[in-house]
């Protein structure tokens, strides 16, 4: 359920501190963030600024040390691991830099995986997997194994896997980082198409060219949001 004003994600005073031995590392400080449904947002910043930490908290892979986080109006900052997993499975789609396809599973099985954990019936799974692969143009490679695909094709399959469960938001962590520029461009075009069709996307990137694909970019430095820019035209 989206809030009345269309806010899908809201963070207030989110902090993340890592404790190792006697050292405290403040990865995120006082993050205030609001993402509305249908937004294409990128998180940019130099290496070590906290981009991935923020994405992991946004994606419910991790929980904040302090602060509040609402996803779709529901407070999610203090959920148990099991509850976080359940919400992550239903509401969030992940696209990873390293694709992270499982080598022993076919393209179909890789895409099907989130639905399997959701307990979706086999017939429904088949239909949704087919649709997701058609959206990324990989429906003809159902029975292939990831090792039989190029890097760009693997990332398209990874996008299909992120889409298959109809998530509220797609979280993309450097989705082009492992691709050459041609394949990188193609994936970015794919994300832009998805956004145009209504998808909410949150992408981490250190590449300004790809950050510009988003309509809104927040810049992180030393764990803080130091700047926020709005693009006049997406993809300009």
């Amino acid at each position: 359920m989206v809030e009345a004003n269309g806010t899908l994600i809201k963070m207030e005073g989110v902090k993340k501190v890592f404790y190792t031995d006697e050292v405290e590392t403040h990865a995120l400080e006082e993050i205030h963030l609001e993402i509305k449904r249908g937004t294409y947002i990128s998180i940019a910043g130099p290496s070590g600024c906290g981009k991935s930490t923020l994405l992991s908290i946004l994606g419910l892979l991790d929980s904040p040390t302090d602060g509040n986080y609402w996803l779709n109006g529901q407070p999610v900052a203090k959920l148990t691991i099991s509850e976080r997993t359940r919400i992550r499975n239903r509401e969030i789609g992940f696209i990873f830099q390293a694709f992270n396809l499982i080598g022993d599973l076919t393209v179909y099985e890789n895409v099907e995986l989130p639905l399997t954990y959701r307990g979706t019936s086999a017939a429904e799974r088949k239909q949704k997997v087919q649709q997701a692969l058609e959206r990324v143009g990989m429906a003809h490679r159902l029975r292939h194994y990831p090792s039989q695909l190029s890097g760009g094709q693997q990332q398209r399959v990874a996008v299909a896997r992120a889409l298959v469960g109809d998530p509220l938001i797609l979280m993309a962590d450097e989705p082009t980082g492992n691709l050459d520029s041609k394949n990188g461009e193609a994936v970015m075009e794919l994300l832009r198409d998805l956004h145009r069709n209504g998808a909410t996307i949150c992408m981490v990137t250190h590449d300004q060219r790809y950050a510009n694909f988003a309509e809104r970019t927040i810049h992180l430095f030393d764990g803080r949001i130091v700047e926020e820019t709005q693009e006049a035209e997406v993809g300009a």
Partner: protein
Amino acid sequence: MQTLWQDLHYGVRMLGKSPTFTVVAVVTLALGIGANTALFSVVNAVLLNSLPYHQPNRLVALAEGDRETSDPSKVSYGAAADWKARSRALQSIALYQEWTPTWTEGSAPEIVYGFRVTQDFFPMLGVEPAMGRAILPEDDRPDRWHIVLLSHAYWVRRFAANPKVIGTNIILDQVPFQIVGVLPESFQPLSFSDAGSPPEVWAALGYDLSLPDACRSCQHLQAVARLQDGASVEQARAEMNSIATELAREFPKDYPPESFVKMTPLRESWYGRVQSALWMLLGATVVVLLIACANVASLLLARAASKQREVALRAALGASRLRIVRQLLTESALVSVLGGIGGIFLAFWGTKLLILWGPQQIPRLSDVQVNSWVLIFTLFVSLATGILTGLAPALQAAQVDQREALQQTSRSLVGVSRCGFRSLLVVAQVACAFVLAAGSALLLKSFVRAMDVTPGFDAQRLYTTNFALIGPKYEDPQAVVRFEREVLERIRLLPGIESAGITSVLPTGGGLDRAGLQVQDRLIPPPQVPSVDRYEVSPDYFPAMGMPLKRGRLFTEADAAGASPVAILSEKTAREVWPNEDAIGKRIQLGGRHEDRPWAEIVGIVGDVHQYGLDSPTTPQAYLLYSHHPFLRPCLVIRSGVNARTLTRETESILWSLDKNVPVWNPAMMEEILATSFSRRRFTTALFSGFGFLALLLAATGIYGVMSSQVAQRTGEIGIRMALGAQRSDVLRMILDGGARLTASGLFLGFAGAVSLSSLLRSQLYGIGPNDPLTLCEVLLVVALVALAACFIPTRRATRVDPLVALRYE
């Protein structure tokens, strides 16, 4: 040579850098090799070394049998004479019998364990005295047999190795025997006493055909024969059976109509059931070694996987595949050699334990040692182990794709390469462990069932000892009866004594001279005459033994004092001879039918007793009164709460107060005797179970190792699955499923293996079939639980994977 040295040097360095791997691999192999070496040293000494006689493969043991004899072991002098006269396949036949005379020249009379043998006994075995002379034909006559040869050990113990004893006399059974020779120290007797003592004196048998004991039906001697040159055992056996048939036709009064001669190669007769038990145990240790090899191979495979980049680099720099395989094999060979050294240490220790715990029924157990043959065996096993464990990992590592391995800097795919070969090893380990565990369970159940058998008497608080009456004053049967009655009366007066009796033979004490049971009102044709174990007992024997009276009454003192013979039968005898009638009141004779002699009236029926061991079936038994059939070597049975040491002292005191020349021997509590009768079964069961446990432990370690590796390899995959929404329970199920599949495959193969190998175990089992479904199911459950327990820690580790690993990129 230089490259080999380089490989060795590198191998040592690599092992030193991974001390945990090295220790685990070496200990695993040491356990397997040590168990093998220890058992091989026993098999080598006991079974593989040839018998210590001249041309031992041409020696056979002979015994007479007929339809009624379940396990023939004895021959008669008369029959042996007939065989000698007719056989062409046998070069010679020597006869012997146990002989336990009493030596009375010391402070206390002492039983000496010995044999009486025919004059051709030692020449047939190829044994010559170390001193003096052998038994001559003229010694082997009824009036001349009072000469003895001493064993080397007895000569040293009794005569302080004095060479001047030759020609002197030793008093045995109050008769002087001239010492004519001393046997060599290396001489190994054909058999030992029930207590495991080697024979110390050897006299001539001193029979001729004129003696009553030399009759054709007087089967109380043992026979060993040498085959004629060129004759095979099969030919000799066929000839002897043809002779037996001829003799039965010619002498129908002396030989049963279906007489046969049992001929067994001496080696088989000597080792008996020990042979199959030892081979079975050696087989078990081989299985343990195979499991240990699989474990180490699995560890080496994991190491090989982690060395892919290094191997690829070496190949890129020009190393040939052979060179890479050799380098990796050198490392595994080093591990196996270290394991072999550890195994030899374990074997030294293990053989000492085996000698200490081994049952007396295993011949030549004291000869067991880790000798050069055993060391060669260990060296061979170690090298074979090195190749077995190292070849697959080395070949796998050498097949690595150089380009892929060197360029592999990113992780775009996860979860590939799931230790396929290692999984196969785990399946094999579980299968082998199941086979051994099933064998262990069957043996354990057999042991428990044999122990649970009621012997037919109450062994608790039951003391026994043997004594013998020697000398001319006991030639009068009434003197014997008076002595024995006096002894019993005095013992009963001792404090704490509940009852005391005597018997001619102690139950579970082994063989008896079985006797045919003749019924007064029924003329039974000779072949159908039932054969019974015969006991002569005092009236108080039954209460002293705690044997239940089933019907009728027990013997009374009035019976003992009276002239009318009476008898008591066991239930089995009564049931078999009078299936539809009451045996009480019937009249019988034991032995031949003699109408001119009195018939004994059956007055009671008592419970059956396991005479030949608790794991042997009961046999028909008959009891007569000691006063009507006096015997000179009775066994005392005393039921009391008094300890054995006190009873021994009191009994000796009473016996020696009546006659200072009475030897007393084998004092023991009945429970100890029963326990000793289980020593071989206990030994086999304990060792096999130990190997079964070790196999299960090693298999569990193997499963743990493979599952740990899989979890480590699949950490990325697990993280991604969790990032995509897999709950911990999903991960748990996924990992356990992998372990369960391996375990189930292993159990399936193991089950099939156990069923197909079960026949090998049959001879060692009691009261349970080799394919007992309940036992196999129980073992299935236990092995499955152990395997799943081994999966538990890696599985738990898998469920704790942080899904953040999905975001990490290296």
